[in-house]
């Protein structure tokens, strides 16, 4: 960032005095929508099918879990990702499966399914069953998969941001060239943990990309009611971190941006990406959403990342409508099967309450 100094005149109470003016300039990248084609990204038609299917899977999985929540098969909070699927899928397409790591907040179904966790283990978790990805101990907010390097699912806003720096630290320490994508909400930027973690990541040159999923609201609080500076990508300036602004309704834009940022991270340069997106549902199941207008919601629905990709596929003659319909049917079947699977998965035995607290298996718990 360049610093220029020049003389300026100003007035104070007493007399004319002059201070200098320091000008600083920062540059960021913007990845707008409709800019990148699949061939720009080197994606094959098969890839496009996968991407479409993956986004659809998240959508249908969540629609179904909302239904199951209504039937009280699922308890606690259920935060739906619907509308944001281009981010999970687009970014997962930019990482190296098995090597790279992801971590997110409580709105975690999308990332989990994108990174390859099965609908079965995810739905069983929502049902609180032993076959759940967290054995029914975590629920909706706490999906984990060590195998997929999905480090959770975290319910305390901002608390996972330093963890991401630590996972990146481990990648660097082992020198395995892996990188971490850490997703967080626009609301999480205002936790102190964000500030501390980003400074540490930059100071230690950790291979991490922080991705702010700016869906315009934190519960009922619009970004401009929480953020003194609403261009969240500018937060990077405080940490000498490169930053980008991305259209989160276009899966190609997300994918391109995340590839570029993953490459930076692999070279030891952490960075910050603000992805502008929208959540179509309430914050959680109990939110009536009075803080926004119907018009706003309807307008945003026109940008639906799945419909948008569908139009792109059709317009560019990549696949036929019937082929897409087949995918839809497949996905629905997969989700239905996951409901059956979850429903048939056993409850944990009660003594299992004492498992998984410690690795030590004979830990002496207090019993009274």
């Amino acid at each position, binding site marked *: 960032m360049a610093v220029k100094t020049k003389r300026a005149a100003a007035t104070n109470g007493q007399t004319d005095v002059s201070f200098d003016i320091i000008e600083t300039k920062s540059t960021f990248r913007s990845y707008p929508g409709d800019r990148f084609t699949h061939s720009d990204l080197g994606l094959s038609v098969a890839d496009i099918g996968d991407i479409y299917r993956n986004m659809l899977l998240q959508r249908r999985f969540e629609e179904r879990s909302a239904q199951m929540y209504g039937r009280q098969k699922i*308890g*606690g*909070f259920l935060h739906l990702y619907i509308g944001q699927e281009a981010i999970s899928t687009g970014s997962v397409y930019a990482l190296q499966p098995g090597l790279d790591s992801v971590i997110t907040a409580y709105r975690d179904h999308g990332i989990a399914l994108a990174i390859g966790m099965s609908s079965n283990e995810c739905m069983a978790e929502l049902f*609180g*069953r032993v076959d759940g990805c*967290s054995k*029914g*101990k*975590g*629920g909706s*907010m*706490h999906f984990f998969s060590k195998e997929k390097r999905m480090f959770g699912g*975290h*319910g*305390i*806003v*901002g*608390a996972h941001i330093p963890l991401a720096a630590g996972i990146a630290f481990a990648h660097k320490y082992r020198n395995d060239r892996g990188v971490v994508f850490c997703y967080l909400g626009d*609301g*999480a930027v*205002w*936790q*102190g*943990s964000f500030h501390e973690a980003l400074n540490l990541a930059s100071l230690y040159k950790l291979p991490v990309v922080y991705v702010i999923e700016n869906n315009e609201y*934190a*519960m*009922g*609080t619009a970004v401009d*009611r*929480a*953020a003194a500076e609403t261009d969240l990508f500018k937060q990077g300036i405080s940490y000498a971190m490169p930053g980008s602004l991305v259209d989160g309704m276009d899966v190609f834009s997300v994918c391109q941006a995340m590839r570029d940022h993953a490459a930076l991270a692999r070279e030891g340069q952490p960075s910050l990406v603000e992805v502008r997106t929208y959540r179509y549902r309430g914050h959680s199941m109990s939110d009536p959403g*009075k*803080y926004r207008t119907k018009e706003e919601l309807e307008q945003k629905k026109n940008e639906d990342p799945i419909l948008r990709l569908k139009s792109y596929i059709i317009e560019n003659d990549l696949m036929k409508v019937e082929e897409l319909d087949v995918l839809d049917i497949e996905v629905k079947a997969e989700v239905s099967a996951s409901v059956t699977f979850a429903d048939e998965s056993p*409850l*944990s035995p*009660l003594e*299992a*309450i*004492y498992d998984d*607290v410690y690795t030590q298996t004979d830990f002496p*718990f*207090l*019993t*009274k």
Partner: protein
Amino acid sequence: MAELQLREAIRAALVEEMDRDEDIFLMGEEVAEYNGAYKVSEGMCDRYGDRRVIDTPISECGFAGLGLGAAMDGLRPVIEFMTWNFAFVAFDQIINNAAKIRYMSGGQFSFPIVFRGPNGAAGQLAATHNTSVESIYSCFPGLKVISISNPDDAKGLLKSAIRDNDPVVFLESEFMYGMRGEVSDADDYIIPIGKARIAREGDAVTIIGHNKSYWRAMEAAEMLTSDGYEAEVIDPRTIRPFDWDTVITSVKKTNRCVIVDESNPFASLSSEIAFQIQSRSFDDLDAPVQRVTSKDTPAPYAKNLVEYYLPSAEDVYRACREVMYLD
């Protein structure tokens, strides 16, 4: 007497006090435009405007500290934590600033502030969203800690807490916000901080329970009645300072005591009560003090495990029969 929901009783206390004293303001996440995550502050932003009912970003450390600074300079903030679980990111502000600055300033600055919000179990929300914090905050001299179990106490004690010139940790409950109960409509209804309530008299056993655990205590007392025994049930209401006299007097009568507390057991309120009872009425005890707490584990998500995790009325009943040497 009016029948109010717990949330309405809390709101009534807030409104009465804010009407009375212009220096009081309410601040927290979603308290204003959203009308409160649990609708405690419904309508209050309309009534007082955004000068006195103030939404915050998700910056608990920041706005807890902001409230403390405002209190240091004479305002009377009520800071809502959406739940007490989220106050751990503000822990230093509460422990090192709220509890200690008055002392370190030789009494020059005081903190007429209330931190309030729901505490403890809230169902299938898993480990980070189910912590009971009464024991932790009660450790710290400089704080006062109140935990309420019904709308009447909520109103009377919150009004006291707001008028108190010391920092008060005020513990509510997600599960109980919708609970209805009679609330005194006496003019300016105040319940003093530091006084337990004997909810039920009896001589067979003393059961102590606050917040949701109070209800488990009452249910267990009912079960004992069917067995022909009358339990004395005490709701401490204030955790710090604790009303030892009421408890000790009761134990001297019943000679046995069961404590119900949703906290994890180790070094918790129940430990302290047991310490005090054995210390102050050693010769009166006919059986060891017993406790019924949550399991000594983090809270799980699965429904069956959550039910097993929490103290049940059955558990309390069994513990009572045990200290009464009935089984």
